[in-house]
């Protein structure tokens, strides 16, 4: 991390100077309480004490809910508290999977769920390929000998820091009917449109905006991967008379593969969970054109008049299983690619 940490460290020093006197008493109290305990249990068992606060919060807000989610998925009704909820077995899953034809959401009882899945698959394929393509090209460009590289790197990275709500509002403003995009389109002789209300364009813009917002993050990872390729390899390949395509094909690509794989998996896992940007940008519309799985979970459990927690939990388990499969796939393929 080197010299680049100095600035935040200075900032941290200031914060520390403020926090120290405030924390003096609580820290002294903790120490006063702990010293006799340490004498009793010994040094190594103090590890339990240090891990305890984190473990408690983790247990109550992650581990316990994970187990409880199974129970919710098998109960019905609209009450929140488990004791008020009738046990229905696998009914929720039966409802979700009650389809005449799995390829046409209209034939399903929970058509919104299947539309969500089909939209999610579309979105994931488009968004992940967009992210991989553009972040690779951008990383390759940024890795060249260019002036003001730091500036350009920041330019592509900046949107990553913006909140999804802000990103969505920025683009909602650009894309609105009397917006600047339509003005530009008209200058070039095109036809102005209500982009986010157009059934043929909404998905494109949702993908576009999320690629815009997230690609900088993956560009950075790929750039780090590119910069870790030892230059000697290119010298060696040029001695062997390799041309630039061969350089790229036989040196860059194989060495960048592990990083590409990380990018692919990370972007895939995030794409499956996409919600915030789209919810603000289109609200899932027009109709249900851009409604993805997470929005179905949210709507079914929390924003509909009738809150079907069981169905929502069952749907979230389907999402959880898809994430699990992706993660396992990553582990497997990751091992293979590191062996190869």
């Amino acid at each position, binding site marked *: 991390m080197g010299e680049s940490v100095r600035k935040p460290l200075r900032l941290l020093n200031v914060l520390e100077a403020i926090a120290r006197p405030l924390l003096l008493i609580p820290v002294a109290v903790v120490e006063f309480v702990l010293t006799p305990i340490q004498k009793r249990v010994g040094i190594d068992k103090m590890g339990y004490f240090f891990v305890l606060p984190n473990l408690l919060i983790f247990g109550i807000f992650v581990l316990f809910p994970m187990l409880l989610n199974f129970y*919710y998925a098998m109960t019905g009704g609209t009450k929140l508290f488990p004791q008020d909820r009738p046990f229905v077995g696998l009914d929720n899953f039966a409802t979700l999977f009650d389809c005449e034809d799995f390829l046409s959401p209209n034939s399903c009882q929970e058509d919104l769920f299947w539309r969500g899945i089909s939209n999610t698959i579309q979105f994931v394929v488009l968004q992940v390929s967009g992210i991989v393509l553009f972040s690779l090209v951008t990383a390759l460009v940024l890795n060249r000998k260019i002036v003001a590289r730091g500036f350009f790197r920041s330019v592509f990275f900046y949107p990553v820091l913006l909140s999804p709500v802000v990103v969505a509002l920025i683009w909602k403003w650009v894309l609105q009917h009397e917006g600047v995009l339509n003005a530009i389109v008209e200058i070039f002789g095109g036809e102005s449109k209500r982009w986010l209300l157009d059934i043929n364009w909404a998905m494109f813009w949702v993908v576009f905006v999320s690629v815009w917002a997230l690609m900088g993050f993956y560009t950075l990872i790929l750039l780090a991967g590119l910069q870790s390729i030892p230059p000697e390899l290119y010298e060696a390949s040029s001695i062997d008379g390799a041309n630039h395509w061969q350089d790229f094909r036989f040196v860059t690509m194989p060495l960048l593969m592990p990083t590409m794989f990380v990018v692919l998996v990370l972007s895939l896992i995030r794409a499956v969970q996409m919600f915030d940007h789209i919810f603000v940008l289109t609200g899932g519309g027009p109709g249900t054109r851009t409604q993805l799985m*997470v929005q179905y979970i949210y709507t079914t459990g929390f924003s509909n008049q009738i809150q079907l927690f069981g169905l929502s939990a069952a749907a979230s388990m389907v999402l959880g299983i898809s994430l699990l499969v992706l993660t396992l796939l990553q582990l497997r393929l990751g091992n293979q690619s590191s062996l190869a």
Partner: protein
Amino acid sequence: MMGAERISISRFLSLRSGGARINSADALTYLYLTFGTILMFGPVLWLVASSFKTQAGLVKYPPPLLPYQQVQVEVEGFDKALPLFTVTMEDGSSRELAQIRRVGIEARMVDPADPAAGEIKVNIRQREPVEEVKLAWENYLDPLVELENFDFVTYLKNSVVVTTVATAITLVINSMAGFALSKYKFKGRDAIFVLFISTLMIPITVILVPVFLVITSIGWKNNLWGVIIPGAATPTGIFLLRQYMLTIPDELLDAARIDGASEWHIYWRIILPLARPALAVLAIFSVMWRWNDFLWPLIVLSQNDLFTLQVGLNAFQGELQIQWHYVLAMTVVTLLPITLVFAFLQRFITTGIATTGMK
């Protein structure tokens, strides 16, 4: 450097060897960068520029680049400032006149230089507003004072509280856990570590309903604690801090123990100061996560006075009649802190992400 240049040249395969190749490759590179800069920054700049336009200025189409407002002039004998127009007179000459009022298609106007000359009647089609570049600061100031359905100050306060408290808690409990998992040998240590890390890929979206139950049972629904606590035990933070603390030599701890330091003392006085770089990375990420957090606060908070900035902004933009002039200004205010943090810590954040691979 040589190598770096070669890799990317390979992209431009269609270009054959010779001196011209480098130039066209460079040209393509800078073309890409220019286009990219416009695409990445343009919309943000457009948002900022638009946020200074008046409500009337925002509905103009095609939209002007800069925020224009009609010039208002003080005219003797009138209490309020009057809007200024350029009027084409019947003889073809044009004059600048201030409008007193409009009746149907007729405007009653007065010459600001010579108000004593009396009213001049003009067809409204013969006048064009005189405009100047002027920033509509009221877009920013109105929400600070009082705006129905959008209590910006409260939202900002809530966001600041959530972000700072959550980051402080995360830093303390994650560093304690990282310390325990890297420096102590106790039964179940590795199992606990694996348990933490295995949830790295399990987002809160998968367990919304049961976490909501837990929050409701504790009485934290519509309470900022309900937003702060569930995400505090971040697996990323534990992983980062544990890995970093592994590099701190055990001898340092043993020396302190010989000097009679308690374990807590070692944690507070030795480990934390030494782990500062990792703590700084986690602090920045935690601030970003919390400031930008949306879905969970949206579920926990249903009371207007508890909204965070993101939830409040979403509710405000979701109204039937979007008041774009306020929405745009408040969006700018929301992105400002993150932009400032980025401007100051840009290199630190980018190297932090490149080395840890987390977001």
